[in-house]
C-alpha cells in the first residue's frame, strides 16, 4: 500500500505538469470558443497537483522516516539534506500557483492579452516548479538506492 501511495505522487505530479503544458498551449491560441476548455484544464491541473501533494505528503509524513535514515547513512546524504528538504518546502509554492491558475483563467482570455499572458506565465511557473520537484524526486530515489547497495568490494 505504501508503494502505491508513493507511486501516486509522481504519477499525479507528471499529469499535473502535462495539464499545465496543455493550459499553456491552449491559452496561447485561445479563442472565445476555447476559453471554457482552458478553464476546465486549469481546474484539472490544480486538482492533479493537489492530489500529488496529498499522496506525497501522506507518504512523507507516515512512511519516509526509514528511507531518510538509509539516505543519510549512504553515499548521497545530500539527497535528503538538500533535495528532499528543498522539495518538501518548495512544493507549497507549486501548490499555491496551481491553485491560482484556475482563478487567473476565469478572466476574458480571448479579449484580454494581459489576462492571457498571466495564464501563460502562471502555467510556465507550474510546469517549471513541477519539473524541479520531479528532478528532486529522482535524486531522492537514487539516494535510497545507493544507500541500499552494498559498499563496492575493493578491486
Amino acid at each position: 500500500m505504501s508503494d502505491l501511495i508513493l507511486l501516486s505522487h509522481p504519477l499525479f505530479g507528471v499529469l499535473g505538469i502535462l495539464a499545465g503544458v496543455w493550459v499553456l498551449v491552449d491559452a496561447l491560441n485561445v479563442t472565445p470558443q476555447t476559453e471554457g476548455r482552458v478553464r476546465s484544464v486549469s481546474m484539472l491541473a490544480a486538482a492533479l497537483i493537489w492530489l500529488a501533494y496529498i499522496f506525497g505528503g501522506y507518504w512523507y509524513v507516515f512512511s519516509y522516516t526509514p528511507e531518510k535514515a538509509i539516505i543519510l547513512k549512504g553515499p548521497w546524504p545530500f539527497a535528503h539534506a538538500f533535495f528532499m528538504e528543498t522539495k518538501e518546502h518548495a512544493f507549497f509554492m507549486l501548490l499555491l500557483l496551481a491553485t491560482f491558475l484556475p482563478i487567473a483563467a476565469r478572466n476574458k482570455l480571448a479579449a484580454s492579452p494581459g489576462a492571457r499572458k498571466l495564464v501563460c506565465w502562471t502555467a510556465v511557473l507550474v510546469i517549471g516548479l513541477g519539473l524541479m520537484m520531479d528532478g528532486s524526486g529522482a535524486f531522492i530515489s537514487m539516494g535510497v538506492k545507493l544507500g541500499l547497495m552494498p559498499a563496492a568490494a575493493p578491486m
Partner: protein
Amino acid sequence: MQDRELSNATVSFGLSAAIVNVFNGLLVILKESNQDTLLAWMKTVTFHHWITHGLLDLILFVVIGFILSKTNAGKGVSMSANALILVLVLSVVIGYTLIAGFFLLE
C-alpha cells in the same frame, strides 16, 4: 463586471500567492534556525511541522487574498497584468532561492 484587464479576484489572489511564496521561504529559515522554539511549537499544533507549515501557507493565501479583494471600497487592488506577472515570477525566484540557499549553506 470588468472593463479592467484582470478581475479583482485575480489580482488579489495573485498578489497573495506572491506574498505567501516569500513568507514560505522565510518560515523555512526561521523554523530551521529555531528548532527548540518555533519548530517545536509547529510540531505540537498538528504533530508534524510540515503539515503546520502547509496549513499556515494555505490559510494565509486565503486570508490575504480575501483582505486584498475588499480593499479600495471592495474594488480591490488595481494592477496591470505585466506587473502581476513580474511580482509572481520574482516571488518564485526569491522563495526558491531562500529555501535552496538555506539548505545548501546549512
